[in-house]
């Protein structure tokens, strides 16, 4: 068995990896993943660049592109979460009062308002920008306030310090439950995009056989995950045969309560395929907004050959 150090966040978004480990999908291909838990996304990228982990699974942020721009090679190899219509993940939540007064009823009404989110240059930031552009607005038309942590962001809405916030599940639901927030829209419904991916470090990618074997396990886990928790009918999730098992595995790894986990799993491609064009678009956007100095040619950062080889190899 070959060991692979995998850096993950201890969150629901890492569920496919947890499933792969727990169900022995990696093991089946002679891979023994060693999970290394992180409490923030940035150190995962750093650890990957430093060679301390071989595989990383986290959000696709400006940070990652900048790491590559500064000469540390790493590869985006597979999907690990998308914003997808019908799958509530990141929500735009407005103050209940403003909603009730009719002041904000659509994305367009956000013009001139104050919107809180965690960090500038985060996936949320990118996403917000794109949603606004779709609605004919620009980021400059409103005021984005970075608040670093989720609780701070939610608290700022509650304290009426901001008019709206952009936060992932389960926070949108909670703000409604507590009565101070109203979900304006789910980001995925407005705009689908690649939110998180699996990365390979330079050395790991070079060890082609091992890298493909790892991917085989991952593809198998993805399918299992997808069939269990993501299949929808008429806009509602139909729990698959292994729904409860996946919930339970996720609960075991994240320590979160099942009822919170059940609020929603992030969407991801059944085979772990990437939305490659979206990645290019993201880079363009980061460059436009000054978060990156220049774009990276896709072939220098995205390598879909692993996932394709794995899909070929792993039978249904």
């Amino acid at each position: 068995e070959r060991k692979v150090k995998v850096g993950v966040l201890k969150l629901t978004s890492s569920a496919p990896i947890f499933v792969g480990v727990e169900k022995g999908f990696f093991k089946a291909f002679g891979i023994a993943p060693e999970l290394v838990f992180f409490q923030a996304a940035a150190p995962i990228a750093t650890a990957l660049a430093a060679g301390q982990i071989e595989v990383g699974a986290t959000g696709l942020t400006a940070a990652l592109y900048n790491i590559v721009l500064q000469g540390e090679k790493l590869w985006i190899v597979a999907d690990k979460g998308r914003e997808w219509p019908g799958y509530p993940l990141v929500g735009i939540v407005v103050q209940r009062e403003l909603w009730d007064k009719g002041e904000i009823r659509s994305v367009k009404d956000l013009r001139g308002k104050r919107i809180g989110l965690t960090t500038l240059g985060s996936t949320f930031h990118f996403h917000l920008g794109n949603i606004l552009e779709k609605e004919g607005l620009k980021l400059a038309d409103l005021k984005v306030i970075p608040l670093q942590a989720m609780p701070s962001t939610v608290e700022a809405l509650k304290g009426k310090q901001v008019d709206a916030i952009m936060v992932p599940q389960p926070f949108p639901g909670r703000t409604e439950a507590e009565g101070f927030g109203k979900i304006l829209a789910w980001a995925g419904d407005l705009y689908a995009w690649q939110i998180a991916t699996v990365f390979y470090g330079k050395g790991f990618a070079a060890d082609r056989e091992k890298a493909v074997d790892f991917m085989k396990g991952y593809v198998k886990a993805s399918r299992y995950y997808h069939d269990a928790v993501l299949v929808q009918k008429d806009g509602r999730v139909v729990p698959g045969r292994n729904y409860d098992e996946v919930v339970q595995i996720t609960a075991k790894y994240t320590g979160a309560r099942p009822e919170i986990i059940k609020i929603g799993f992030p969407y991801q491609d059944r085979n772990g395929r990437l939305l490659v064009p979206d990645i290019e678009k993201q880079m363009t956007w980061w460059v436009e907004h000054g978060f990156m100095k220049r774009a990276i040619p896709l072939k220098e950062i995205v390598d879909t050959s692993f996932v394709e080889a794995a899909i070929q190899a792993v039978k249904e």
Partner: protein
Amino acid sequence: MSGARVPVEDRTRFLERRELKTTRVLSLIGLVLLWELLARIGWVPRLFLPAPSSVAGEAVEMVASGELFRYLGSSLLRLGLGFALGALAGIVIGMAVGIASLAEAVVMPVIAATFPIPKIALLPLLILWLGIGEPPKVAVIALGVFFPMAINSFTGVRNADPLLARAAVSFGAGRWSVIRKVMLPSALPMIFAGLKLGAGTALLLLVAAEMIGAESGIGFLILHAQNIMETTKLMVGIVVLSLLGILSHWVLTRLERLAIPWKHN
């Protein structure tokens, strides 16, 4: 004989120190009651400041499941090691810098320059050099403990009575003897202040230390509970930190009394 007969009273009584152990305990109970009250009257939302009663409930569960002790165990190791390393380095370097002008001129600017560097900005370098296991976690704590220790030890040595140093020299004490037998005891009160600060700082930095590659630990608990919005668990973590803070303060105060007997009799 005109005028009154006035008894002389000890006017230095206000300088006296009493122990007031019950007051100490009452103070902490008051703090908890205040918190409960704040939570009850709804001044603070349940979500962000759960009432002590519910925190206690959660804590009991975590104790029953053994989770809390496991976390405590892994954190205590990091804390202990980081504290010991940081404190030792701080005392040694602080005292060296206090006694030798050359060391002072070389090291002090470096200390002043590196002290303000935020630990989170150091994480990448720590990961690069020390990996993602225990070493970087211990290093974060040690670094945090180092600065208050070094600056306080330095100040302690600098403020030692020069007459006593000269007395020691007159009896043949060399540099090393003076350091051990004059500077060190003179600096002890400040060193203990530094240790108290260091202990608090170590606990404070546990969260930063357990940001990378931790699967257990109180800092991990706090971070993770915050990520998954389990505020009650978060508060359990904070309460544990607070208790450790009180405990370490108490232990250090006791130790101080043992180490400085000549001031406490």
